[in-house]
């Protein structure tokens, strides 16, 4: 009997893997079937999100991270690394120019690395669930570390970040984007903050600015630091970590082009993983992640089902009634959902 594609993916066959990634990305019935079969084999990888504004050096940093993971000190077995690099699709043409590989040349020829570029294509929930699907395929295929690069510009990235166990937010001096990032709420999702391009003037300022902002957004953690654990027991949900075990996001300088600071970053990533595992946070994140994914898929499926249940003419009719102010938008939704009395 020939090996099934699912089995081939589990065996680490690259052709089967890449074809499966496409099936999942294209949301085909075959892709969904394979995902179904792969899912029991997931849950072993460490998922690391890398997000930040364009040009901060995310791809260069991901290249260096993966390279260092693959070249550990003598005597240590290097983990295998998968990379999902996501860039926006053009809203006009639907096409995309995916250039992250240009910065990842050091990984060429290493059979323990697999780099996959992905365009954001359409919608928010859609992108998040597609990314989750790709990550599950890599996880089942046995990759130890999965790096997910996204452009940090809004809600979509926050959603994708929530996929990861560890989220790294990358800043760089001279882009004037500290405030923008702050606004997008991206600082709150950071487990580790990186000021990349530490070789450039202004890096120290950026480091300082970030540390200040962090102390503003995480006052309870400062209280813990200053006055011991009694002060913030209220913040900790029952069964969660002891307050003094709370993770305070470190702010680290890196120079991705030379690799300076990347060893320290890898240490902090490992420390964060360790923290999650000992504090119970790992399980909480797994739960939140999967709940999120089910939510996204459910939303998609319901929308899909509703869409195919309503004749376009009826939809138009109700819209016309709203436009001519016969009925309110809320009443329109009511009608459309019930499908009756149009």
């Amino acid at each position: 009997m020939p090996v099934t594609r699912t089995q081939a993916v589990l065996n680490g066959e690259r052709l089967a893997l890449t074809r499966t990634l496409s099936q999942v990305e294209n949301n085909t019935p075959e892709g969904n079937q394979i995902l179904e079969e792969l899912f029991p084999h997931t849950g072993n990888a460490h998922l690391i999100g890398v997000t930040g504004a364009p040009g901060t050096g995310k791809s260069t940093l991901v290249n260096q991270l993966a390279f260092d993971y693959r070249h550990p000190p003598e005597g240590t077995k290097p983990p295998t690394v998968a990379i999902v690099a996501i860039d926006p699709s053009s809203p006009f043409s639907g096409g995309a120019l995916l250039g992250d590989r240009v910065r990842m040349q050091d990984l060429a020829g290493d059979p323990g690395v697999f780099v996959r570029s992905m365009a954001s294509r359409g919608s928010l929930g859609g992108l998040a669930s597609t990314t989750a699907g790709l990550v599950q395929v890599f996880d089942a295929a046995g990759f130890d570390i999965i790096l997910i690069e996204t452009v940090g510009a809004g809600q979509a990235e926050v959603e994708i970040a929530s996929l990861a166990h560890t989220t790294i937010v990358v800043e760089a001096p001279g882009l004037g984007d500290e405030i923008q990032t702050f606004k997008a709420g991206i600082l709150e999702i950071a487990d580790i903050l990186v000021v990349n391009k530490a070789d450039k003037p202004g890096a120290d300022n950026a480091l300082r600015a970030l540390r200040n902002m962090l102390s503003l957004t995480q006052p309870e953690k400062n209280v813990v630091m200053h006055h011991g654990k009694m002060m913030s027991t209220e913040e900790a949900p029952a069964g969660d970590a002891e307050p003094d075990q709370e993770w305070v996001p470190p702010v680290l300088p890196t120079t991705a082009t030379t690799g300076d600071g990347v060893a320290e970053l890898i240490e902090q990533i490992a420390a964060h993983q360790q923290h999650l595992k000992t504090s119970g946070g790992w399980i909480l994140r797994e739960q939140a992640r999967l709940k999120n994914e089910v939510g996204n898929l459910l939303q998609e499926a319901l929308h899909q089902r509703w869409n195919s249940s309503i004749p376009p003419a009826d939809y138009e009719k109700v819209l016309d009634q709203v436009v001519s102010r016969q009925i309110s938008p809320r009443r329109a939704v009511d009608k459309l959902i019930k499908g009756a009395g149009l």
Partner: protein
Amino acid sequence: MGNSQTKIRVLIAKAGLDGHDRGAKVVARALRDAGMEVIYTGLRQTPEMITEAALQEDVQVVGLSILSGAHMTLVPKVIKMLQKQGLTDVKLFLGGIIPDEDKSELTKLGVDGIFGPGTSTQLIIEDIRKACQ
């Protein structure tokens, strides 16, 4: 949303040691504007790197830009390696300066199209679309 959707995915690679990729970038942008997903890999790609990227990105099309004159050594290598990886259905297009006397040989080897300097991007888009049907 929820529907299956397929996009033409194209790898654009610049092979050989010469150092500029203006033409390749123009083509990459034109293909994006035609709705394709273009994976751009940059300069100085060896046949090994091109094949590895084509596999990892699961592209239907590889567009290879060669200005160095090394096409008669590079292209057969790329074709052989693609086949070895099982990527027998990938279409291969060449851009750059390819002398007429080499063209029929390259076509025989399995090259799906050759675009000389000054080829309109519209024609390139149409040929790629046709090859992917």
